[in-house]
């Protein structure tokens, strides 16, 4: 996600969750942040020193957030 408008993005997140996605990850390369949405009212923001986990979407999966931004 780099230039999408916030409103359109919110709509998309809502639709993914409504139609069955178990999680939506929004990656902000400029800010080096990842937002994990599990439900309309459940969101967590992760920074570079944190671990992204798969939870229900990818049970057992985990990666350092910093690995996602490697090379930037």
């Amino acid at each position, binding site marked *: 996600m*780099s*230039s999408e408008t916030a409103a359109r993005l919110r709509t998309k997140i809502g639709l993914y969750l409504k139609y069955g996605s178990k999680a939506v990850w929004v990656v902000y390369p400029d800010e080096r942040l990842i937002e994990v949405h599990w439900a309309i009212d459940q969101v967590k923001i992760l920074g570079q020193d944190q671990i992204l986990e798969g939870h229900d979407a990818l049970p057992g999966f985990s990666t350092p957030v910093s690995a996602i931004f490697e*090379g*930037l």
Partner: protein
Amino acid sequence: MSTTTAPLTADEFLKLLDTEEQRVELIDGEVVDMPGAGPAHERVKANLIRILNRWLDRHGAGLVYSESAYRLGERTVLVPDLSVLGNERLARRIEEQLRGAPDLAVEVVSSEAADRLQDKVRLYFKHGSKGVWSVFLRSRTVQINHSNGRIDTLEQDQILEDPDALPGFSTPVAAIFEGL
């Protein structure tokens, strides 16, 4: 965007691309729609991403990019379905990595006009690609294009190799069409 008629520069086009969700390329200043990508197209891409990443990881040989916009010249921007950048290219500043053609470009073809595809193959090689693969969904074949103009057409029971682009790499063609 299909109503755009005035020729665009690559810089103008890349700015446009940033605000659009349509799949488009720029060839000699003309904005060209990319054919829609159905589920079979996406599955073949997913298969290839896995196959290429497995090999690239094992050899520390580079990264697979997906639908990245390469600025080939002042008036040409191509967006291969998949592309591979080798380590030399990845050592450049991030802002410079998508300038010029990728080391390997892969186009998954369902309906693209043959003449347009050949134009793109020619452009990739002209701007420095070492290999261009065209994957044909309907016939389940893969064309390995070479910089000297030679084309190898491979069937499902054959092995794909491209020593110019990925020395040492090989995969059964059938693995590319797995799941279809």
